[in-house]
């Protein structure tokens, strides 16, 4: 039995002001996949993630999304000027859960990501790594089946990176579909089973991780991996 399709992009074009951010993108993502988006800065990875998440609608083409709970983690997660607990509970409350119940679930979520002891500390007083774990707790609390992450470890120290990667791996092992943009190719090898190479708004490559990193493989992705300027 094949896995359910969660996202399907059909000839998607996206214009952001004068920028043609995505060009004729076709893509299918199935449940349980761990998809990494790689490419140069400004290539369209973040725009693609935002399109998938529904934060921006395409200028042309269609984005079909399965109606499953999804969450997105940003490079610098936003913290409300409130406790870590309230920061997690807010997301649940916005989805219609009663505040008392939301706080209970939020506490569980913070325990899950190892921040239980810091539940009452201000979200703004947490370190970068802790804030990113809190963002993951928000997703876990929502029981998201799809987690989109936009360079989630880009601004973290090695310890923070390791903690976040570990949680991403655990969530994926629990059945969550991961779609993440990153510049960290080691992270791609550790976490992804499929790699999409996005450059100048185009999906130039789509391959299983081991094939993507095959040094003998020709194509634009090989040049990217060699560090050539495109």
């Amino acid at each position: 039995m094949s896995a359910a399709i969660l996202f399907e992009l059909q000839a998607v074009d996206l214009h952001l002001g004068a920028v043609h951010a995505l060009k004729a993108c076709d893509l299918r993502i199935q449940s349980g996949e761990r998809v990494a988006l790689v490419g140069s800065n400004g290539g369209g990875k973040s725009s693609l993630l935002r399109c998938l998440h529904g934060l921006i609608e395409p200028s042309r083409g269609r984005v079909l999304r399965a109606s499953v709970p999804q969450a997105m983690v940003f490079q610098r997660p936003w913290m409300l000027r409130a406790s870590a607990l309230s920061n997690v509970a807010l997301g649940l409350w916005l989805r219609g859960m009663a505040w008392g119940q939301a706080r209970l679930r939020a506490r569980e979520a913070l325990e899950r990501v190892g921040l239980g002891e810091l539940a009452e500390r201000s979200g703004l007083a947490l370190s970068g790594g802790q804030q990113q774990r809190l963002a993951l707790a928000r997703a876990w609390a929502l029981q998201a089946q799809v987690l989109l992450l936009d360079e989630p470890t880009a601004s973290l120290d090695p310890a923070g990176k390791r903690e976040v990667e570990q949680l991403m791996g655990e969530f994926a092992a629990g059945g969550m579909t991961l779609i993440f943009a990153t510049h960290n190719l080691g992270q791609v090898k550790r976490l992804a089973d499929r790699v999409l190479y996005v450059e100048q708004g185009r999906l130039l490559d789509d391959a299983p991780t081991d094939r993507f990193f095959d040094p003998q493989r020709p194509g634009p992705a090989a040049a990217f991996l060699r560090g050539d300027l495109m």
Partner: protein
Amino acid sequence: MNTLYDSVLAALGLMAAFDPQLVSIALRSLAVSGLACLLACVMGLPLGGLLAVLRFSGRGAVLACLNTLLALPSVVVGLLVYLLLSRSGPLGFLGWLFSFQAMVLAQTVLVLPVVVALTRQVIEQADRSHGEQLASMGAGPRWRAAILLWDERHALVTLVIAAFGRAISEVGAVMVVGGNIEGFTRVMTTAIALETSKGDLPLALALGLVLLLLVLSLNLCLGLLVRWRARRDGRAASQEPLWIQAGPG
């Protein structure tokens, strides 16, 4: 020089003795401007928040009008409110002209654009940084505005104090619609203007000092608030206090 020295001494004497006339005028000023500020905030904070997050056709024109209203001279506001409240005006039936209510209304009209425009600016900046994440968490524009208003409350306190400073230091609007009636509509700024023209400099100066002290206390409170916020958030304060100008406007 002697006149100034004598006036300052006399003014300090009036303040130390809690001169009933001085106290009454100062309290009336606080009541009028405080109430006007409260009303302007009740309307202006949500309005500014919504203007910050909503995108609609004609938004640019609305913002241009709003920014123009920021420079509205207080005496023009007084004139407009006068025309509204005069017996033949649309609100003449209220019988508010030359009353406490008329002064509150005039100052509310004066301060409302300040509150809306500055709130819009603060919330739009916050929305640019965090709006996408809030939307991702399921917040529609109204909730985004409400949450960002709550989250930016410390910056908005600065704004409220600035609005209060604008209200308490203006003279034109309250003079026109209040009439500067002793014991009823005389406030600090109108009293300063009148006493100066009468040559009673000590009372005028004492009122001026009280006005300055009020504004100074507000600024001190603001400074403490900003420091407290910085300490609580565990990071440097991102914003310097907006210093209030105390002077007839």
